[in-house]
């Protein structure tokens, strides 16, 4: 089923009615600077909620990164992803990357991150969920390494930690209909770059920045 494009903006209002998606800018302000927003991932609504929390003027240049195996299966979901959210589809990073399997890892990662590099090169901001998969609980799990590589390669792009609350309570794993609830989207201060920092230290620091927002 294809809906006319002009009906799609209502998806933002639908999300607001159901779960609020109230933005709270704690450590940063809305800005047209190129940014990577990285957030905890606890439900299927996260992408749309974070996107809906951004001011309309920033949404045009901000593209969520979405896994092809979920968002690319066709139908209404894919139509929303492509025409409304303008997502960057990626194939989920292969396990070799996270095992640190040296031979295959660099190739696989380069492939997986290529669409993101492309979008950043063209000046888009990105929304990414570095856990790589949903963690249906308040605090995020370990981050995967993609964020580290992008941060190193695009050193001018601001890294904004974001915490999404309550969404795993609204849409538990396996559920289709969200329970209406109030969720806030908290934007933190840009993550500073530390020269010579190891991958693991960087990822842990990025995760801690998201967790810190959970308390506010």
């Amino acid at each position, binding site marked *: 089923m294809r809906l006319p494009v002009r009906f799609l903006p209502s998806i933002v209002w639908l999300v*607001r*009615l159901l779960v609020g998606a109230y933005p*709270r800018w704690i450590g940063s302000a809305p800005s047209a600077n190129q940014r990577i927003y990285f957030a905890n991932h606890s439900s299927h609504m996260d992408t749309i909620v974070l996107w809906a929390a951004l001011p309309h003027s920033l949404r045009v240049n901000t593209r969520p990164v979405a896994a092809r195996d979920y968002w690319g299966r066709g139908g209404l979901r894919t139509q929303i992803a492509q025409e409304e959210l303008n997502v960057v589809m990626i194939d989920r990073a292969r396990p070799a990357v996270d095992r640190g399997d040296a031979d295959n890892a660099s190739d696989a990662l380069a492939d997986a991150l290529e669409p993101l590099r492309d979008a950043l090169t063209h000046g888009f901001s990105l929304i990414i969920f570095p856990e790589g998969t949903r963690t249906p609980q308040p605090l995020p799990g370990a981050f995967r390494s993609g964020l580290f590589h992008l941060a190193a390669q695009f050193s001018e792009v601001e890294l904004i930690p974001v915490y999404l609350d309550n969404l795993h309570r609204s849409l538990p794993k396996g559920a289709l209909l969200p*329970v209406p609830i109030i969720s806030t989207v908290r934007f933190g201060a840009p993550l500073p770059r530390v020269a010579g920092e190891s991958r693991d230290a960087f990822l842990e620091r990025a995760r801690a920045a998201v967790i810190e927002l959970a308390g506010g």
Partner: protein
Amino acid sequence: MAPTDTFFWVLLAFAALFAAATALGTWLEARAGDTVKVAWIHQLNVRIRASWLIPLLFAIAFALGSAAVVLVFAVASFLALREFVALTPIKPSDYWALIVAFYVAIPVQYLLIAAGWYVGFAVFIPVYLFLVLPVIMAWRQDVERYLERVAKVQWGLMISVYCVSHAPAIATLRIPGFEGRSAMLLLYFLLVLQASELLAVIVSAAIGRTPLKSNPNKSREGVAIGGGAAILIGASLWWMTPFSWWQSLLMAAAIAIAGFLGGLVLSAVKRSLGARAPVASDSVQLGRGMLDRLDALAFAAPVFFHLTLFFFAR
């Protein structure tokens, strides 16, 4: 004059009154010197602007019919319940009970109101859902803090849906000698309630004294004087109602007192659930603070509805 004509002129008069208050408040805010004064006039203006909802609601009803009023209150219930659920610790096993609360309880309750079926809307939530929700929640055999979880869902439903839905129900009352004019009674109810809230805040800000623990914006003296003034206003509006002036005085007193108690109770509920005061920038957003706005109404509406039903309707 036909009832609809009277209704129209009353509405116009109150819209003019609110417009004057808004203009005066805005002028005072621009003129006030020190920041403390600006802050409280601003607080006041936020409330005065919120009062616009009343004439607006009735303009909608006037244009689109009474079903529109029912719909507006249904949306308000939805937003209030959403806020209540956000404050309540819920578990994935509560999922189906909450789905029923939002997507079944709210539409059914307001359809019963729109249909004017008194017995139906009076018992649907307190009897049928009271029994069905614990069944749904027991089905999964997750008994950790079971009673607490059931109680919270039911409390949320009773306050945000059942109690609030009695406001549009006022417009469905059939009162001998007052046929076709019940919407005026709902307008009367909302005006008295809003006057008591607004005047309590204004007088509290003006004279200060002993702040209430439940609401730092109000003081004991402010509530007493503001509430008293609202009761007199209610008495002076007897011509809108099927009441005589002294009956209207007593009804307005019931509305003001029940409204005050509603604020007291919901403040305790929210503080026990650990709610924080909303951040100033949040207040302009859709549906934020709906529980705050409906606390007085949730208590006053059923009280006023039943008093009127018992003494005046048949």
